[in-house]
């Protein structure tokens, strides 16, 4: 039906502009859930969220309610949150421990952590002569078609076929290498608080904003200036202001003309990287101590390599933004064509000194919490975009900034010299979108 109404999905996306319906049409939204989110690798959570057998977190993959659970085999399984009997959700809480097995609250069917049927009350007498029984795979809780993890970060794909996780991530896997390598032990663990914020806008608007280097000094000017004034005042009083003020003031002190000096790298499948700008390697005693610990663990040369990885954040299409040098990430869960949930997590670098955790925590609290002084203005813009796009005031969304001047080599699109504000990331994301949407089944 939809295919009839939309004869050629590729008509929605041109190299430098897209139709507004891409953000506003509920039927297109259903189609992108089918063809993108319920097909490609979607981030479920970190293994340290479920350290003990039976620990679980519920998570939305596309439109599907899923459970990420630690099994007795110590593996992390991802299952549909649905009892195969009458369809009851098995886990009603957001997270918890299910004990030795899942037990449905409706008729007491029980299941192993990998989804296999364990018991049905009065199974022999009740199901004699029927097709229901332990040998029937329809009696198991359906697992995600594929589950893989990379350095502790668990992904699921609801499609049987497709690239492996590492093939899909390609060079964007650097997000997880960077965050983990910054730990002297090569590992991170989750800080068990998740900030959850709902945006009244299409999921793609958030993703596009993540690498939009033109917006910070406009959107976040008020916070940047406010933080800069207080930062200067503290410096005058005490000689030095905490780095957290700089994290906020950078939004204003890096003025609009300077953002072209940064760079974005755009990969296949819509993944992309914005290079760093916050100067997170000052020469204060805490940082120097951290560098000593890292050098001891990895050697001087490798330490230098790790700390010179130049990333502000990595976007893993279609639903994860990783800010590896500050150990945090935002997972994007589309709730509807104009409603999106972000789940925001912070991680500890195992074995790194406490001040490094605290420095990143300040950013987590100030920028990524529900009282954010930064995202407040982003979310306002996203909502305004959504409402504006729903109007008949125009058909197209324009992505022409620095168009035609991108440098492409080996499948990677780099913004040209002094063109950091190029809309190449939006062009790259929409190109990937069109490929996913029109791919053969």
């Amino acid at each position: 039906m939809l295919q009839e109404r939309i004869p050629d999905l590729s008509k929605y996306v041109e190299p430098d502009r897209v139709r507004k319906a891409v953000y506003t049409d509920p039927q297109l939204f259903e189609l992108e859930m089918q063809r993108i989110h319920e097909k490609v690798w979607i981030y479920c959570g970190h293994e340290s969220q479920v350290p003990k057998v039976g620990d679980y977190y519920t998570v939305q993959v596309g439109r599907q309610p899923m459970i990420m659970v630690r099994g007795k085999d110590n593996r992390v399984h991802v299952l549909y949150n649905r009892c195969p009997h009458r369809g009851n959700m098995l886990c009603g809480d957001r997270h918890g421990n299910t004990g030795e097995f899942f037990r449905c609250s409706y008729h007491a069917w029980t299941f192993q952590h990998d989804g296999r049927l364990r018991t049905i009350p009065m199974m022999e007498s009740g199901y004699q002569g029927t097709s229901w029984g332990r040998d029937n795979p329809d009696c198991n809780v359906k697992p995600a078609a594929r589950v893989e993890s990379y350095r502790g970060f668990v992904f699921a794909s609801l499609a049987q076929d497709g690239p492996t996780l590492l093939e899909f991530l390609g060079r964007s896997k650097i997000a997880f290498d960077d965050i983990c390598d910054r730990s002297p032990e090569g590992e991170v663990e989750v800080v068990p608080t998740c900030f959850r914020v709902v945006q009244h806008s299409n999921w793609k608007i958030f993703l596009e904003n993540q690498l939009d280097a033109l917006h910070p000094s406009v959107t976040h000017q008020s916070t940047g200036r406010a933080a800069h004034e207080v930062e200067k005042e503290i410096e005058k009083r005490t000689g030095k202001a905490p780095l957290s003020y700089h994290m906020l003031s950078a939004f204003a002190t890096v003025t609009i003309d300077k953002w072209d000096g940064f760079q974005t790298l755009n990969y296949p499948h819509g993944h992309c990287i914005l290079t760093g700008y916050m100067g997170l390697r000052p020469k204060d005693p805490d940082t120097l101590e951290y560098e000593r610990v890292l050098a001891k663990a990895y050697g001087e040369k490798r330490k230098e390599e790790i700390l010179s990885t130049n990333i502000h954040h990595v976007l893993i299409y279609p639903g994860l933004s990783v800010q590896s040098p500050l150990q945090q990430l935002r997972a994007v869960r589309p709730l509807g064509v104009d409603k999106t949930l972000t789940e925001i997590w912070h991680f500890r670098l195992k074995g790194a000194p406490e001040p490094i955790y605290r420095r990143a925590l300040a950013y987590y609290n100030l920028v990524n919490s529900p009282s954010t002084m930064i995202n407040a203005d982003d979310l306002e813009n996203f909502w305004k975009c959504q409402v504006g796009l729903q109007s008949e005031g125009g058909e197209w969304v324009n992505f022409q900034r620095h168009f035609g001047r991108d440098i492409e080599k080996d499948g990677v699109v780099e913004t040209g010299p002094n063109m950091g504000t190029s809309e190449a990331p939006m062009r790259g994301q929409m190109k990937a979108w069109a490929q996913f949407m029109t791919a053969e089944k």
Partner: protein
Amino acid sequence: MAKSKPVRKKKPAPKPKATSPATQHAVEQFLYCQAEILDGKRWQDYVDLFTDDGVYWMPPEPSHKTWDGMPAIFAEDKNVMTVRMKRVLHPDAWSQRPLWGTNHVVGNVIIEKESPNGDVVARSRFHMMELRRDDVRHFAGSYLHHLKKTGKGYRIKLQRVDMTNAQAAYDYVLQVWV
């Protein structure tokens, strides 16, 4: 069997300490004035209610015992509060430009502790209605105030805000103190 949740001994509800009607009255008046200052958007007056080492804290979970080194929705000293105030007052704080207003009601005031020097620990409950453009949101929860008695009246050493809404996903965000 699936493990049932361990039965935790519930902490008995703290008994209100006998306190003088004068203290009760003074604390209540202080909390009412604080509500008026917030609803009146008198941000500098609000920041001035805090002692120099005062902290405004909203934990994301009731189990948190300290703001220090913990994820927090708010964990602000006077410097950070000043950033927030200056941001909200900046003409280009885009998201604060639309029609916006709040209405706090504070009640259930219990004096938990009164020290010989007049410092007070008080618990209370609040309900805040917020209007933003055409949307209304409701927030409710409890306050814990550590108040220092000074020549100019009470000053806040710690204001802990346990907002019941904090457990659920936030529909949009909070821009100023509750």
